């Protein structure tokens, strides 16, 4: 079985938050859905776009394997409500990195238009596109005109349309509950055949893991505690062969919040407030917005409610123990990541270099040190392991 060291790749994941919040922002119980857009300043927005794009361009220069983007609506959390636009803007500014659109919530777009948009990006980038398909957070269903009670059924159907558009020569037709097409025949078609690599992205809900297993797709776990993530990947490894697909380590994609510095103390001092901002502010929303009616089952709601009842405020110790958050010297970060890749048997790491409201200089420092000091340490583990296995196999 393939091991994680064989094909280890690092994508930098940029959420592109709008971090300029009013002094009284703590009074809002949610910075999603109903936090007023009167607080958006276009001049500041322009500066954020310029800066964030420059950070992604730097990541390409530094040799990152992928530049990952995602989409959210009605929120300071993301400046990418139309993430395909950001992907298109990055294509001519970058050369080698994959453009990873992780991604448009399938239910928020007509699936033929999504097939077209992704095909455009793939052809424009000469085959650098990789995609992940999210159901979308509960918050997206409060912000868009889509019924959350049918979200999962609609998602399955949208996926069928998308794959039919990419795997069958058109025109074909499609007759479903949510979509019907007389002439499904989108131009252009993707550069990569039959289509770019696809992941399902989610929190590990049984339905989304099941879809990935059935289709043999990768599963990109959003930021959830380590224990939950490992259970998700375990289920993926167990279920996938039942549908005739082979699990390979590139199909387990996980996120990590990482900060690299000269010493552990400097790293903690430089990153802590930004990690805190991420958890306390950027992601702050209400239980009601997280779970609109019908978005999850009653039993899942019960599990979630029971789990959150025991949580308090920001707890740095618990965070670094229970979540994939690591800060420190290149050695410490490399060793921790190696351990995580090993236990999840994952060869795809989505690294958050820009954390919360981090200033540009720290992002550049973090991204550069990670590329120059952490990645080589992890890649050398691959060489050592390969050499060991040749020795074990009796080769020269």
């Amino acid at each position: 079985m393939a091991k994680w060291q064989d094909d280890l790749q690092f994508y930098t994941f940029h959420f592109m938050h709008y971090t300029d919040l009013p002094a009284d922002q703590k009074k809002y119980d949610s910075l999603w859905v109903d936090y007023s857009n009167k607080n958006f300043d276009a001049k500041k927005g322009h500066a954020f776009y310029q800066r964030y794009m420059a950070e992604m361009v730097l990541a390409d220069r530094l040799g990152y394997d992928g530049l990952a983007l995602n989409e959210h609506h009605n929120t300071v959390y993301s400046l990418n409500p139309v993430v395909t636009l950001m992907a298109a803007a990055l294509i001519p500014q970058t050369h080698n990195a994959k453009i990873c659109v992780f991604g448009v919530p399938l239910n928020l777009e007509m699936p033929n238009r999504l097939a077209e948009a992704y095909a455009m990006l793939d052809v424009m980038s000469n085959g650098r596109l990789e995609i992940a398909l999210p159901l979308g957070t509960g918050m997206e269903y409060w912000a868009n005109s889509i019924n959350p009670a049918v979200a999962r059924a609609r998602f399955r159907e949208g996926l069928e349309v998308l794959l039919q558009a990419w795997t069958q020569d058109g025109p074909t037709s499609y007759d479903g509950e949510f979509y019907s097409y007389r002439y499904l025949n989108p131009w252009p078609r993707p550069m990569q055949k039959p289509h770019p690599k696809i992941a399902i992205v989610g929190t590990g809900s049984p339905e989304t893991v099941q879809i990935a297993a059935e289709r043999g797709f990768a599963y990109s776990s959003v930021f959830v505690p380590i224990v939950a993530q490992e259970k998700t990947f375990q289920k993926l490894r167990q279920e996938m062969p039942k549908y005739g697909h082979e699990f390979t380590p590139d199909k387990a994609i996980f996120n990590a919040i990482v900060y690299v510095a000269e010493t552990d103390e400097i790293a903690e001092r430089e990153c802590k407030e930004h990690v805190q901002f991420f958890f306390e502010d950027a992601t702050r929303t209400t239980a009601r917005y997280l779970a609109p009616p019908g978005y999850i089952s009653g039993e899942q709601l019960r599990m979630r409610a029971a789990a959150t009842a025991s949580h308090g405020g920001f707890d740095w110790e618990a965070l670094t123990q229970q979540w994939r958050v690591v800060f420190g010297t290149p050695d410490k970060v490399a060793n921790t990541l190696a351990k995580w890749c090993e236990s999840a048997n994952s060869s795809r790491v989505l690294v958050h270099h820009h954390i919360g409201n981090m200033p540009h200089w720290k992002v550049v420092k973090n991204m550069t040190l990670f590329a120059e000091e952490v990645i080589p340490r992890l890649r050398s583990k691959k060489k050592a392991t390969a050499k060991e296995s040749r020795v074990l196999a009796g080769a020269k």
Partner: protein
Amino acid sequence: MAVTWKSEELTVNGVKTQVLSAGKGDPLMFWHGAGTGGGWDFAAPWTEKFKVYIPYHPGWGGSADDTSMTTTQDFVMHYLELLDLMKLGKINLVGLSMGGWFASTFATQHSERLKKLVLVAPAGLRDKAHPTTDIFRIKPEELAPYLAENLAALGPPPDPHDLDFVVNSYREATSFARLAWERIYDVKLPKYLHRISVPTLFIWGKQDKIVPEAQSAVWTKLVKGSKLKTFSPAGHLVLNEKPEAVKAVRDFLAA
């Protein structure tokens, strides 16, 4: 006065349906609204003169979920089958809020199955001048004052940390979302309301903060010969708040 309800389980076109009943006399069926938290004790005076039936809609109470129930027509067909199954020829029908939406739609198509109709603060009408409150926008902890003027009439407030209560409310909201997430009304309903051909009474709380009492003007104009009785001070759950409203329903149906 507490009523002792008999509970039966019927299978209606494959869907397990719980029906409560109590009392003696002519059949009176009550179709509940999108929330069932208030209980049914208010109906006690009806059981003195009628055999009262309270079925739970699919997706509520002891009835099973049916994810295919996405339009009022699905509920109309469900109840047509239920009446046949229960061998109930003609009934008195009382619908509250969402139940009033179902009942008015049912009556536009099947008045021959009804003796009389009572619509209590019915949902389902689009009145742009007096819009129905979008209950999906109301935070659960802020809901109670929308429902009643006299909160004591609703009984002790539910404990928001009671997981069974939270999960049950979520299930009811999910069932309602299947029907009404996009629109909490049926734009075509006014076009067909003239088809209701049985004596019809509207009951409304003057201070209704969910379905404004002002909508009654549109309803009474479209349902020929219908009457209106309002109660004050009373909110959306006027039957829980005002025993006089319950008695008015009884008297209208018994007359």
